């Protein structure tokens, strides 16, 4: 537990120092969201139909792009080595890094998404569904993504490989996440979609940290 808190605190502190990275997601999101009307044209119906897709694609891209660097800096400067030889269990450390990643990408995105949805003209209940779907779905991106990042650490062609590994796992999350919002827009109960997302989350909570730990040990061998 100390290990978890120590690492979490440090990750957040570094993010705060850099500011860039934390703000980056928001900048990114606002860019994606506000550029779409620019590129696509500002018809209200079209925008409403797009809102969930835009939010979810932004979440997916933000995750994908920040994951490549999840372990890279710690790997390069020797911190990861220290984490492996530390008496603290590696799982706690990895979980803390995953948590930090979610707090810095998934959570801000989820919280900002309703604002964007509002601008795109989503009704209140759809906004709620959007928020819930992102809150349940984005941790899956961090959890499974971390495993992918650990597996491709220090591997030649890591970037594309990471995409190849995790995208197939992410697409269902996107489809069900955006699907939930679309369902609520056309008056269908989104619970089915959301519970599917929940099941995904449960599975990835089991699989993600374990796979990440194992992969990190291999990467540093």
């Amino acid at each position, binding site marked *: 537990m*100390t*290990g978890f808190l*120590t*690492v979490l605190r*440090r990750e957040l*502190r*570094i993010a705060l*120092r*850099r500011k860039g990275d934390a703000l980056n997601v928001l900048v990114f999101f606002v860019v994606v969201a506000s550029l779409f009307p620019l590129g696509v044209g500002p018809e209200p119906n079209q925008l409403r139909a797009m809102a969930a897709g835009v939010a979810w694609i932004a979440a997916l891209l933000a995750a994908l792009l920040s994951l490549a660097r999840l372990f890279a*800096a710690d790997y*390069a*400067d*020797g*911190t990861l*080595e*220290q*984490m*492996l*030889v*530390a*008496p*603290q*269990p590696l799982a706690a*450390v990895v979980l803390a890094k995953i948590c930090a990643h979610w707090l810095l990408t998934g959570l801000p995105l989820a919280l900002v998404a309703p604002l964007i949805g509002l601008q795109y003209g989503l009704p209140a209940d759809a906004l709620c569904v959007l928020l819930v779907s992102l809150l349940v779905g984005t941790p899956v991106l961090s959890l499974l993504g971390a495993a992918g990042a650990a597996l491709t650490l220090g591997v030649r062609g890591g970037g594309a490989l990471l995409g190849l590994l995790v995208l197939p796992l992410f697409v269902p999350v996107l489809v069900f996440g955006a699907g939930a919002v679309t369902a609520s827009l056309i008056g269908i109960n989104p619970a089915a979609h959301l519970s599917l997302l929940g099941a995904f989350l449960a599975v990835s909570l089991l699989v993600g940290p374990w796979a990440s730990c194992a992969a990190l040990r291999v990467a*540093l*061998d």
Partner: protein
Amino acid sequence: MLETSALACERGGLRLFSDLGFSVAPGGLLRVRGANGSGKTTLLRALAGLTRPAAGAVRWRGEPIGDGYRGEMLFLGHAPAIKDELSVLENLEFSASLAELKNSDCKIALQQMGISRLADLPARYLSQGQRKRAALARLALSAAVPLWLLDEPFAALDDEAIIGVSALCATHLAAGGMLVLTSHQDVPISCATTRDIELQ
């Protein structure tokens, strides 16, 4: 008590060394020598449990090394594990609490390494030697950790810092600690039970 038996390591399919057997007893210093690329770093990483040996085993107190070992060992490699964004003190505090060492002594440790003036400077601005000193400050916190594995601790240090680090090592050995180190420079640590191994 650290022991190896018939230890062998490989890198990229290349056998670096094999059939290495030695032991380090309390108060003992083991110096690993050898040319560039002869496998010193690899050996130390194997002793730390980071690299899986191709053959043989590392034993600690008679047992193959496992989870409990990690709390009794300090490994400092080539990479200083220092984050540019954090201040020198924050860096030390983090590595101390990751290693379950006492956080409260961090300032004293920095003082011992002669960098207490830099405690609040972001590590990005440190000079090469100051960065190394910041990494080595952990030694001053680790008196209670029995086994130290140090990879090139003296590189980039000036004479004053070398003397400081050597003194820390000597104290540790005198108190019954164990020390394995690699160094291309002469090591000014006085210790009764010094052993060298040479890799080629």
